[in-house]
């Protein structure tokens, strides 16, 4: 670390002390952040892809397997009872985290992708018919495009996408125009993974509801960075992945309003989702189990509960304020390097910096930064329509989490300068 960086670090320490946000203490709780990569301290800036895990989450997983492991909702024995208690406790943690009205509105799924597929398959196929439309935005992740495309194709419906402007913001008037009498459902990302744009979801939901159209919000990029209140948003469905919010992979959440979920047919059949089965007729279980066929990812759910407790313990408002400060610093620092162009400059933005350096291909940027121990993502970020909108094949993307520091941004900037040297 240079003297300048160290000085900056200590100044930062002061400003952080004032806000009560101790990033060094937070970092100490993440074992992987103590690692060296290629002989250099790891600078992990690929958080929009997946986040690192705090000790608290890793311990919760180990504790579960060492002390409580058993199947849930079945056995009468001690361990099964205990596993069930912990699993359902995690559900209540998620309920509290999203401020859902009831715990049975929380469905455990594998991740955001499965959550959207569940809604598309169950709600979509029973409510979308020939000539109908599904409305999304031009900044969706493929996981909020393809499931709708599949339903539309099957039903003879049409998928519409509201355009975005040069800053990467939804053009609200265009969205309003496309929201017509044929629209049966709106799917919108809370925060864009490729651009960082925060969508005005409250306003979108209000408008859609005024026309009796339900709204699904893809919250994968939102929950790690800001507090979410599904009752205040009044969204009909909200989905997110555990692994992006410091929890394990393989677990995610679909929140749905009771009335909608009650009326929806099951997604998958199997054990746990039934009340009684004969060869003639099956009676489905009540919520949330109707949508949780088979043995769930028990450890994953418990780990997710620990992760949500972890971020709640720090405070999502504090996290949001801190990350905003780092993002502003990063935006200034990165965009001041000659030849750097930022993709995604929305006024309302969360911790994503998508950028290009001259005509250097992002893949080359990624390899050179990797040699410096810096992990970023390069490519289309599962958002090919966004790349097409900006007429670029790919971007380099640095994405922040609660443990990133301004010093790490300085390392990133030096890495970017190295890219310019190699490709001078």
């Amino acid at each position, binding site marked *: 670390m240079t003297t300048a960086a160290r000085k900056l670090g200590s100044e930062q320490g002061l400003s952080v002390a004032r806000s009560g946000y101790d990033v060094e203490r937070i970092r100490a709780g993440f074992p992987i952040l103590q690692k060296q990569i290629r002989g250099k301290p790891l600078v992990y800036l690929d958080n929009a892809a997946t986040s690192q895990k705090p000790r608290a989450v890793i311990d919760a997983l180990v504790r579960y397997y060492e002390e409580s492991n058993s199947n849930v909702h079945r056995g009468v024995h001690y361990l099964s009872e205990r596993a069930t208690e912990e699993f359902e406790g995690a559900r209540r943690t998620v309920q509290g985290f999203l401020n859902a009205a009831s715990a049975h509105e929380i469905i455990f799924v594998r991740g955001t992708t499965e959550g959207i597929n569940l809604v598309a398959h169950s709600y979509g196929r029973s409510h979308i018919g020939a000539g109908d439309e599904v409305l999304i935005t031009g900044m969706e992740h493929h996981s909020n495009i393809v499931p709708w495309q599949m339903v539309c194709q099957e039903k003879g419906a049409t998928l519409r996408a509201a355009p975005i402007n040069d800053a990467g913001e939804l053009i609200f008037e265009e969205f309003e125009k496309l929201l017509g009498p044929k629209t049966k459902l709106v799917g919108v990302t809370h925060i864009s993974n490729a651009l960082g744009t925060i969508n005005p979801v409250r306003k979108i939901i209000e408008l859609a509801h005024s026309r009796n159209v339900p709204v699904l919000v893809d919250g994968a990029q939102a929950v790690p960075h800001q507090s979410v209140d599904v009752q205040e948003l009044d969204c009909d469905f909200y989905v997110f992945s555990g692994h992006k919010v410091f929890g394990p992979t393989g677990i995610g959440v679909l929140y749905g309003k009771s009335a909608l979920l009650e009326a929806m047919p099951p997604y998958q059949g199997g054990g746990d989702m039934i009340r009684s089965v004969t060869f003639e007729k099956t009676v489905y279980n009540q919520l949330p189990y109707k949508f949780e066929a088979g043995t769930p990812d028990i450890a994953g759910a418990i780990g997710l509960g620990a992760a949500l407790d972890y971020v709640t313990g720090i405070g999502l408002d504090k996290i949001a304020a801190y990350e905003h400060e780092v993002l502003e610093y990063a935006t200034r620092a990165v965009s001041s390097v000659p030849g750097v162009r930022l993709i995604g400059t929305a006024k309302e933005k969360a911790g994503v910096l998508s950028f290009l350096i001259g005509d250097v*291909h*992002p*893949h080359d940027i990624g390899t*050179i930064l990797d040699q410096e121990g810096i992990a970023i993502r390069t490519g289309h970020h599962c958002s090919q329509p966004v790349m097409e909108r900006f007429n670029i*094949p790919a971007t380099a993307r640095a994405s922040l989490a609660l443990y990133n520091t301004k010093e790490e941004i300085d390392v990133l900037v030096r890495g970017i300068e190295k890219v310019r040297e190699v490709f001078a």
Partner: protein
Amino acid sequence: MSDLRDLYQDVILEHCKAPRNYRELPAADHKAEGFNPLCGDRFTVYLALDGDVIRDISFQGTGCAISKASASMMTQMLKGKTREEAEKLFGRFHDLVTGHAAAGAEAEIGKLAVFSGVSEFPVRVKCATLAWHTLQAALEGKQEAISTE
């Protein structure tokens, strides 16, 4: 940094900046499109054959330095070669970038030896071989765009 220089040798950077045979080939009788969905690299390779001999070859598209330089040098190497020679060279090149080159293979591979550094970067092997896979598809007369995935 030394590893990085092994990958981004001057010859590679130079071909990336000024790719050779970078144009559409009006007289092409074979062409194919290659796509790497992981990073968005996309190239079209054009061929004009004279019997079994590659009379002319060119390419167009977008991609990283490694994929572009590889395509550029491939077109230089293959002009005047037969199909069989092209296939054989691809085999040698593939061995080189995957770190399986036999001792003494440098003589056959010539200038392409600058890509030896790729073997230290396994995720970049697809970049280096994209143009070659596309060439193969063009020679086989495949209609669908080929993909590295």
